[in-house]
């Protein structure tokens, strides 16, 4: 049963991904991406990684997609028809991607993966414990670093997006 769900999800992901990168309308491209992300969340649910699926839906589908939609609105491109690239460029890129894909698949299929049969569900408690542990294999340091990174990203985003015009206005009022 899971097998069929997975195949459907895979099909949805691939179709919508292709649609996203080839669509001529901006907003449609974003929405197709949303569907792809939801499909990936579905795959996470299938693998019993509930926490990750939740994060995926919250952060990606909720946060990032909204961010991108906001940016699309801010640059007034909702109705615009996007240009497409030259045919020659498309062909070359397709060729390169197909070759790369071939390399990937050959590598993957040539390797013997030693699969361990299991049906363990990873609980949030496990993840939390691992994230905050100080012993060997603990991820406390990357956790702290990530928080610094997010702080820096936020400050950076504010500084860059503030731009020059706002400061000029401030100067004029002063």
């Amino acid at each position, binding site marked *: 049963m899971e*097998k069929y769900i997975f195949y459907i999800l895979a099909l949805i992901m691939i179709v919508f991904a292709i649609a996203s990168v080839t669509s001529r309308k901006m907003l449609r491209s974003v929405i197709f991406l949303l569907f792809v992300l939801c499909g990936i969340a579905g795959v996470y649910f299938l693998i019993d990684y509930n926490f990750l699926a939740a994060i995926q839906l919250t952060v990606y589908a909720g946060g990032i997609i909204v961010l991108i939609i906001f940016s699309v609105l801010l*640059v007034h491109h909702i109705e615009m028809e996007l240009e497409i690239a030259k045919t020659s460029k498309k062909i070359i*890129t397709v060729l390169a991607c197909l070759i790369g894909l071939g390399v990937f698949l050959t590598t993957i299929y040539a390797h013997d993966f030693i699969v361990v049969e299991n049906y363990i569900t990873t609980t949030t408690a496990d993840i939390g414990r691992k994230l905050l542990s100080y012993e060997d294999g603990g991820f406390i340091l990357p956790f702290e670093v990530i928080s610094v990174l997010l702080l820096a990203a936020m400050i950076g985003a504010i500084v860059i997006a503030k731009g020059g015009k706002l400061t000029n206005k401030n100067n004029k009022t002063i």
Partner: protein
Amino acid sequence: MIAGISIYEILSVTSILFFIGVYGFITRKNLISILISIELILNASVVNFVVINKYLYPDMLQGVLFSIFIIAVAAAETALAVSIIINLYRQINSVEVKDIETMKY
């Protein structure tokens, strides 16, 4: 793990997604479309991490945790990219790739 699905199939699906993202990155002319393609690439790699963790090393959690970090980084990066795009739009009033070719020969 998913019953009846071998690891090979999942890995091939993620590879296909990855290369669709690459194609979109190289082909598209709009900066935001490029951002979308980058999201595709990142997501494909996250799935890769998680699947290998689940299938080959189920008792260890490195894959999952790393994927959390990747998602965090991707979010930060997207936020910054959007702010840059907005700043750029203010300067040159366009988000086409062909208008930002100043760093050429």
